[in-house]
């Protein structure tokens, strides 16, 4: 008997630099190949350090289809373990977050330390001394962290995280300035699913073109200053390819660096917040907090599964070829003024999540993409907007106007590189 190797779909006829076939959204074989070739072969975001601040703190998650546990051990090191007992495969944890001293399999009681080592096996004498526990730790992924963003990979031999992030690091540095002098901490999350392929959401993070139309309901509900600020197609923004599938879309150029222009007038919409903060904080700190409260003026899309999106982390988790889970993780100031964090949470609730004034409209159009993608698989998804005006920056990055599909082209180029291997 011979084992048949899992057939790899030939992706060459399906993708060009400026277009992709809709089967990329609909073909289960392509999805299966993506889980292996992409999610098992690169750095995948798993947590923010503030989600597991203390020894023993853990959360569960996924890397591609693999259930994982992200845990901080007694010495403070973060581990990412495959959530699977080495005996007969049961998960050793089904709690989404918490604090523990160990992970014990509920089936036969094998117990693992926080670092994944196998500590206890009930009725061990049944193995007649043949069980070498050192050979059966939880399977652990490689873990690296940048600015509190924790990534994991199954690959021992790929380059370090900092090399993978490359030019995106500068934008992560800028994004974290919204702590306004305090460490950035997560403040909770909105989690929702839509019936569509994960790449539809991946594209959307650097899609300014849809904003005035899909989010007209949100824009109508907000104030004049916010409308002016979010008039993103007319503010001189840009999209830039940062390599390795990453890209940045600058929607509000004046909010690239939150520490610039601190002496600018405080917007009318934040006057009450500023007055409240001024009771306990000096003028410059008030200005720093207020300027950062709505987040950075850009979306940084990190291939394949996370974005630093204005004022929150957007995390996507493929569930199946036609289902995707999205988390919008709110962030704020650790130890910062409660009024500032409250303002951030109210802004988050306003737009994000299943009951926000923005996300449900996004989810609706993505749902429509998945439905429409069932129609005539010979047609192309066009990704050529802004190609004609694209130029290279001094660093050699492709850049075009804010409504260009440059970020999508960057993501699909990385997709094609990884899928062709």
């Amino acid at each position: 008997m011979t084992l048949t190797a899992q057939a790899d779909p030939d992706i060459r006829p399906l993708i060009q630099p400026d277009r992709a076939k809709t089967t990329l959204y609909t073909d289960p074989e392509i999805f299966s190949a993506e889980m292996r070739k992409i999610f098992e072969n690169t750095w995948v975001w798993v947590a923010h350090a503030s989600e597991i601040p203390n020894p023993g703190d853990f959360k569960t998650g996924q890397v591609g289809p693999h259930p994982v546990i992200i845990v901080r051990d007694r010495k403070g090191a973060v581990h990412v373990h495959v959530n699977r007992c080495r005996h007969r495969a049961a998960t050793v944890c089904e709690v989404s977050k918490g604090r523990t001293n160990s992970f014990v399999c509920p089936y036969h009681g094998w117990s693992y330390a926080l670092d994944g080592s196998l500590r206890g096996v009930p009725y061990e004498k049944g193995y007649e001394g043949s069980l070498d526990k050192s050979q059966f730790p939880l399977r652990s992924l490689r873990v690296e962290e940048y600015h509190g963003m924790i990534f994991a990979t199954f690959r021992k031999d790929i380059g370090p995280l900092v090399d993978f992030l490359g030019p995106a690091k500068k934008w992560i540095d800028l994004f974290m300035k919204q702590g306004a002098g305090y460490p950035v901490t997560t403040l909770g999350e909105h989690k929702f699913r839509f019936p569509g392929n994960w790449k539809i959401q991946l594209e959307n993070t650097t899609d300014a073109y849809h904003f005035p139309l899909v989010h007209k309901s949100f824009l109508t509900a907000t104030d004049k200053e916010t409308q002016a600020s979010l008039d993103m197609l007319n503010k001189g923004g840009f999209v830039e390819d940062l390599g390795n599938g990453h890209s940045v879309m600058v929607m509000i150029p004046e909010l690239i660096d939150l520490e610039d222009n601190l002496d600018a007038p405080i917007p009318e919409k934040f006057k009450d917040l500023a007055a409240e903060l001024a009771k306990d904080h000096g003028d410059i700190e008030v200005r720093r907090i207020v300027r950062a409260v709505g987040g950075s003026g850009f979306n940084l899309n990190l291939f394949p599964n996370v974005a630093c999106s204005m004022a929150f982390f957007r995390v996507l988790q493929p569930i199946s070829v036609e289902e995707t889970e999205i988390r919008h993780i709110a962030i704020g100031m650790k130890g910062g003024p409660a009024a500032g964090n409250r303002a951030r949470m109210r802004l988050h609730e306003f737009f994000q999540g299943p009951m926000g004034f923005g996300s449900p409209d996004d989810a609706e159009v993505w749902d429509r993409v998945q439905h429409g993608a069932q129609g005539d698989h010979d047609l192309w998804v066009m990704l050529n907007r802004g190609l004609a005006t694209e130029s290279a920056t001094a660093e050699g990055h492709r850049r075009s106007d804010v409504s260009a599909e440059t970020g999508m082209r960057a993501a699909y180029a990385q997709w094609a590189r990884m899928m062709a291997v």
Partner: protein
Amino acid sequence: MTTQPITLDEAMAFTWYEADLLDSAQYDEWLTLWTADAHYVVPIEPGATDFENSLNYAYDDHTMREKRVSRLRSGLSISASPVPRTIRIQSRFRLLKSDADGCDLRCAQILTEFRRGRERNYTADVEFRLVRDDEKLKIAQKVVRLINSTEALTGIGYIL
């Protein structure tokens, strides 16, 4: 303003009325059911009580409730065009407390939404803080605790 305690019958009849207004899209009337400083809350964490200092799915004061109603009516929101049809059932009412200041009522709510060929269900404990204001009952707080609030939801383009 009378301070006669609210009875279970009164409270039930009132929340059924509110449920019917939402299912039949009578939003103007619905907006008048609230006290001026009331909040409509859909929390995330089970057992949460400090809603103001927590991230919620919805934490609506009067202005936000008005915006939510406008969104349902404007035709500008693609997820609310058309607005999903909803039918909600409330039962298992329990008056947790009732005194001269008002009452705390808890009930079960099972809601079915239907839109674009899809039927979905949301089940919740609903907690009402009701007060008597000029002989009429008013909502001082409504908290919708979804049974699956910590799991992934789908877009909810209506009022729970």
